């Protein structure tokens, strides 16, 4: 069974969902590499040009708790918005925190790799937007963050990016993307 189906089958009411997520949040963040800081970064989460910022605003406006749908985190609207977002720049990183203030060790790693390669990239802070965060998991069929998109295509999470960086594959893919 695919991960997509698993997600869609998870039952929960909006109230239970917000309660559950806050509980899980606290316990999950005992992990040393992740800083508990959903509220720390409410301003200026998206280090990107206006184009992306406006998409982000649109996303935020969709995220009122009453419209939180557990049965399909990825609404058709969100899907088409994401289609636009991932193709709006050559390299997009959906991460926890921002480029300058990553809030998770794995996100930090990918930011460092991209900075090392001096490629231009935009980041979107998924801690800012719960429906974006849940929707993206389905959109990418990937359960965790960070999620790296190159040339509109999902490239991988932290492990894959790190391994591809070490092998040189990432550099090749990026070069190709920059020239296209």
């Amino acid at each position, binding site marked *: *069974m695919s*991960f997509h189906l698993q997600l869609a089958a*998870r039952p929960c009411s909006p109230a239970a969902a917000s309660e559950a997520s806050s509980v899980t949040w606290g*316990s999950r*963040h*005992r992990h040393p590499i992740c800083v508990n800081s959903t509220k720390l970064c409410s301003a200026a989460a998206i280090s990107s040009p206006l184009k992306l910022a406006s998409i982000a605003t649109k996303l935020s406006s969709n995220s009122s708790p009453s419209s939180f749908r557990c049965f399909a985190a990825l609404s058709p609207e969100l899907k088409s918005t994401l289609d636009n977002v991932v193709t709006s720049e050559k390299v997009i990183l959906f991460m926890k925190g921002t480029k300058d203030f990553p809030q998770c060790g794995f996100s930090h790693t990918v930011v460092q790799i991209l900075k090392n390669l001096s490629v231009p990239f935009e980041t979107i802070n998924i801690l800012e937007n719960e429906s974006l965060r849940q929707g993206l998991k389905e959109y990418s069929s990937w359960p965790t963050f960070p999620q790296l998109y190159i040339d509109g295509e999902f490239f991988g999470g932290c492990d894959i990016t790190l*391994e591809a960086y070490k092998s040189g594959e990432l550099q090749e893919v990026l070069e190709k993307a920059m020239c296209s």
Partner: protein
Amino acid sequence: MAVSKEQVESTLKSKLNPSHLDVIDTSGGCGASYSIEIVSQEFEGKRLLERHRLVNAALAEEMKHIHALSITKAVTPDQWKEQEARKSQQDA
């Protein structure tokens, strides 16, 4: 609710039939973070992304309770033999 290391291991064993599997609990006790090294014939002919997807899909149920899953190795038995041989050469 935490997921035990044994649970992660048994799920991966039953779904991906690995010839080598190493699951390390990196959570420091709360059971929400694991690092996995897995060798399976299932990975043959698949790109790294697809291999990770296989592992993620196998652990879909567990992933609801796992915060961080790091797949440090997802290789085929042949690749594994090669890597081990290289390692022992370096050690020698």
